[in-house]
C-alpha cells in the first residue's frame, strides 16, 4: 500500500487502483471518447474528416498511453463494448432482409460487383504492401481488412494472422473509405445512390455504412447490404482461398 501521500488528502493512488480494477474506467473512457467524437463530428457539419470513431480511437490510445495503462488491462474492461460487435453483426440481418426485395433484378450486378470489389481489395492491398517491403505479419493483416471488423477478426483467427492488426487495418480502411468515397465515386461518375452506397459498403463496411446513412437513406441501405454480403461471403471464401493458395 502506498503511504507516501499527505495524510488527510484522498489517496489518488488508492482511487486509481480501485477504479482500474473494475471495468468502469475503460468503459467511461471508451464511451466518453466516442461521445466527444460525435460532438466534434456534429460541430464540423458531419465533415468526413472529423470521423467520430477516429477521434475516439486517438483519444483512448493517447489516454491509456499517458496514464500508463497496458492495453490488455484496458481491453479487460472495454471487452463489454467489444462483445456487442457480434450482436451488431447479427442485427445486420434486418437491413439485409429489407434490401432483399429491392435487390431482385439487381442481384447479378450486385454479386459480380461484390466479388470484383472484394478481390480488388485483397489483391491491391497485399500486392502493394509486399511490393513496398512490409513483413508477413502486416501483409496478413491486410487480407480481411475490407470485411466488417467483427467478421474480419474471426477470419483472421482462422487464417492464423493477428486479429488486432486486422481490426486496426479494417477500421483504418473504414475511415479512409468514409472520407474518400465521395471523391472516388464522383471521379468514376457513379450517379445512382444505390450503386454509390453498395460500393462504399463493399470497400468500407460499417464505418462506410454509417457515413452512407448520414448522406442518403438508399445509399445507407445498400451499403449495409454490401457490408453484410461481403461479411458472409468473405467468411466463407477468404479462409478457403488462403488454404488453396497456401498463402
Amino acid at each position, binding site marked *: 500500500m502506498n503511504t507516501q501521500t499527505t495524510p488527510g488528502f484522498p489517496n489518488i493512488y488508492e482511487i486509481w487502483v480501485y477504479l482500474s480494477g473494475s471495468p468502469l474506467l475503460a468503459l467511461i473512457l471508451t464511451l466518453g471518447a466516442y461521445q466527444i467524437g460525435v460532438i466534434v463530428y456534429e460541430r464540423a457539419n458531419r465533415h468526413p474528416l472529423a470521423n467520430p470513431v477516429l477521434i475516439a*480511437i486517438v483519444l483512448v490510445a493517447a489516454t491509456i498511453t499517458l496514464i500508463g495503462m497496458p492495453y490488455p488491462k484496458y481491453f479487460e474492461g*472495454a471487452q463489454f463494448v467489444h462483445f456487442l460487435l457480434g450482436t*451488431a453483426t447479427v442485427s445486420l440481418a434486418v437491413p439485409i432482409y429489407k434490401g432483399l426485395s429491392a435487390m431482385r433484378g439487381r442481384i447479378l450486378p450486385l454479386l459480380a460487383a461484390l466479388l470484383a*470489389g472484394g478481390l480488388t481489395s485483397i489483391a491491391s*492491398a497485399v500486392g502493394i504492401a509486399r511490393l*513496398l517491403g512490409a513483413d508477413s505479419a502486416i501483409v496478413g493483416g491486410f487480407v480481411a481488412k475490407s470485411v466488417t471488423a467483427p467478421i474480419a477478426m474471426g477470419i483472421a483467427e482462422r487464417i492464423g494472422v493477428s486479429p488486432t492488426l486486422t481490426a486496426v487495418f479494417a477500421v483504418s*480502411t473504414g475511415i*479512409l473509405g468514409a472520407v474518400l468515397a465521395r471523391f*472516388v465515386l464522383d471521379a468514376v461518375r457513379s450517379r445512382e445512390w444505390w*450503386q454509390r452506397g453498395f460500393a462504399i459498403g463493399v470497400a468500407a463496411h460499417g464505418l462506410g455504412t454509417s457515413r452512407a446513412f448520414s448522406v442518403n437513406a438508399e445509399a445507407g441501405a445498400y451499403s449495409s447490404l454490401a457490408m453484410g454480403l461481403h461479411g458472409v461471403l468473405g467468411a466463407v471464401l477468404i479462409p478457403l482461398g488462403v488454404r488453396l493458395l497456401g498463402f
Partner: protein
Amino acid sequence: MISGLVQILVFQGLGELITHFLLPLIPGPVVGLVLLVGFLALRKSVNASLDEVASTFSQHFGLLFVPAAVGVVMFWPHLKAHALAIAVALVVSVVFTIAVTALVLKGLSRGSRQ
C-alpha cells in the same frame, strides 16, 4: 426494444453453437446473421422492436470498433517501421475497391436495362 434484443441474442447464440459444433470455418455471428435473415424471410416481416435495435446498432456501429482498434498502441513501433507501405496499401486499395465496385455495377446494370 427488449424483445428485439432477445431475438438477436438468441440468434447469436445459435450461431455460436453451430460454429462450435458443426461449422468451424464460419464465425458464429455470421451464422447467426444468415439464420436471422432466413427467419425474417419465413415470417415476411420485421417487428418494430427488432427494427429499433437493429437501427440503433447500425447508427453506432463505429463505437463498437474502438476497443479493438485501440490495440494499435501495441503494434505502434511495428506499424511505424512500415508506415509508408501501410499507408499506400490502405489508401490505394480502398480507392481501387470503391472504383472497381462502382464501375462493375454501372457497367452491368446499364447492360441489363436494355
